[in-house]
């Protein structure tokens, strides 16, 4: 069993292979020169903690040894030969596989406008990226975040809390257009503005110049922003090139069937790099979310060993913004009817019902304690295909747990 990419999905898969009882070799290959670590803290704790923030490891060396997982770090997989069942590494080594799992993740999308080579622009995906950003943000420095998505907003929150002056430049009409319904995005915007972050929506970036050791962000309307750090957070691109070169089908990610198998029955994929059809939503999707990565990695591992189980977990996402948390279970579309439930001062919760009355998503923003249980129970309702009454969901006197039957 060979796994390419030692992020969240690949590491979860390696462990799951052992938990499923596989006794043969498990080889986990990663091109980063460190033990596998969690990415979510990179935009949160690692930017704000006072003292040397270490990476949060996914697995200790002892655990890897105990599970007899062969972890090859700092090695890139360059080539897959599907006919010969081998992969070739950057150091020329060739490894044979019986089953192959691709968990190559995604990389930050690059700006498509001209960028002066001396300008200080950064993206955030790796621990090294986070340390570099951490070096720059401090009291009094100017940060411009391009892109009002999750990573940009989390960095904005971390940077203002360290005393930086922060401007978020978003091309779209509002923040978080892709993933979050408008009323919740509005709450998040208000929270940032209260914290002192300037938010400019509908602002197109035309280019980035260098100016006396700093960067100058030039907007289409002629305005400019000087910055010590420009963080580009305009989404990610799935790492599909390796799969593509091997002739595997690609469709907004490495294309899988519902059992997470690629167009080659010996090759599987999981995590940010893949797209898969979801029975509950009747659509192909690619998720960029932490929980999906590890659950899908573990599910793919079981299927590599022949379990042949469709992956039907409900998409779930969280983001921390200051002292509050956003959680989303399921996927909501424009046409879904929102039902608001009053949680008092501690949070806001919206349920989304499909035309046939089924609950398809729930989205909440507030203190973790106020929202987490509700979102978890909503997720269970979504899995079971329940169609709770809108009046009951909206009524804070009705215990959500009582709607589970």
């Amino acid at each position: 069993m060979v796994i390419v990419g030692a992020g969240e999905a690949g590491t979860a898969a390696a462990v799951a292979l052992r938990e499923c009882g596989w006794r043969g070799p498990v080889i986990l290959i990663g091109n980063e020169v460190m033990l596998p670590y969690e990415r979510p803290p990179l935009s949160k704790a690692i930017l704000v903690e006072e003292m040397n923030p270490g990476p949060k490891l996914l697995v200790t060396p002892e655990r890897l040894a105990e599970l007899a997982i062969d972890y090859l770090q700092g090695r890139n997989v360059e080539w897959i030969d599907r006919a010969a069942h081998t992969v070739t590494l950057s150091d020329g080594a060739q490894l044979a596989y019986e089953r192959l799992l691709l968990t190559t993740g995604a990389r930050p999308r690059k700006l498509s406008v001209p960028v002066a080579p001396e300008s200080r622009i950064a993206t955030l995906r790796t621990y090294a990226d986070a340390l570099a950003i951490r070096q720059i943000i401090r009291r009094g420095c100017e940060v411009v975040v391009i892109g009002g998505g999750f990573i940009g907003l989390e960095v904005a929150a971390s940077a203002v809390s360290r005393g930086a002056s922060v401007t978020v430049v978003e091309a779209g009409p509002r923040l978080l257009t892709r993933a979050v319904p408008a009323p919740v995005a509005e709450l998040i915007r208000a929270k940032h503005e209260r914290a002192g972050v300037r938010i400019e929506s509908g602002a197109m970036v035309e280019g980035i110049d260098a100016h006396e050791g700093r960067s100058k962000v030039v907007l289409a309307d002629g305005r400019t922003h000087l910055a010590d750090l420009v963080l580009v957070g305009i989404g990610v691109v799935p790492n599909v090139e390796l799969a593509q070169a091997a002739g595997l089908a690609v469709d907004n990610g490495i294309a899988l069937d519902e059992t997470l198998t690629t167009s080659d029955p010996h090759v599987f994929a999981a995590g940010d790099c893949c797209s898969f059809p979801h029975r509950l939503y009747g659509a192909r999707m690619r998720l960029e979310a932490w929980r999906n990565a590890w659950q899908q990695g573990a599910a793919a591992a079981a299927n590599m060993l022949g379990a042949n189980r469709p992956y039907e977990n409900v998409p779930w996402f969280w983001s921390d913004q200051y002292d509050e948390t956003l959680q989303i279970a399921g996927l909501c579309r424009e046409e879904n009817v929102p039902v608001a439930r009053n949680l008092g001062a501690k949070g806001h919760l919206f349920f989304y019902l499909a035309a046939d009355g089924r609950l398809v998503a729930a989205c909440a923003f507030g203190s973790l304690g106020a929202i987490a249980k509700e979102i978890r129970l909503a997720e269970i309702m979504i899995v079971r295909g329940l169609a709770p009454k809108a009046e009951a969901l909206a009524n804070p006197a009705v215990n959500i747990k009582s709607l589970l039957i």
Partner: protein
Amino acid sequence: MAACALDALESEETLRFDHEGRTFVITRSPEGDYFAIDGHCSHEKVHLADGVVDGYIIECPKHFGTFDYRTGESQAPPACIDLRSYEVKVEGNTVFIKI
């Protein structure tokens, strides 16, 4: 230490209990028995009293690490360190925990 009244919880419900700077989560099982373990998840400092209980399992509200609330044993990642459990006694109408 007196923690709560016997009828404070229904089964599969939780209660946060704080004492001298420490925090605990008290859970009632489907049979109606009371159990107590450390309040904070072993993955990050998140209170388990906000988590969902299913059978004998309590689930962390943040990343869904799970624990057996009878023993404190971790059941599912990302929480992989066990929590401490504390002896619970019911006397009359009061639930006591031994800290």
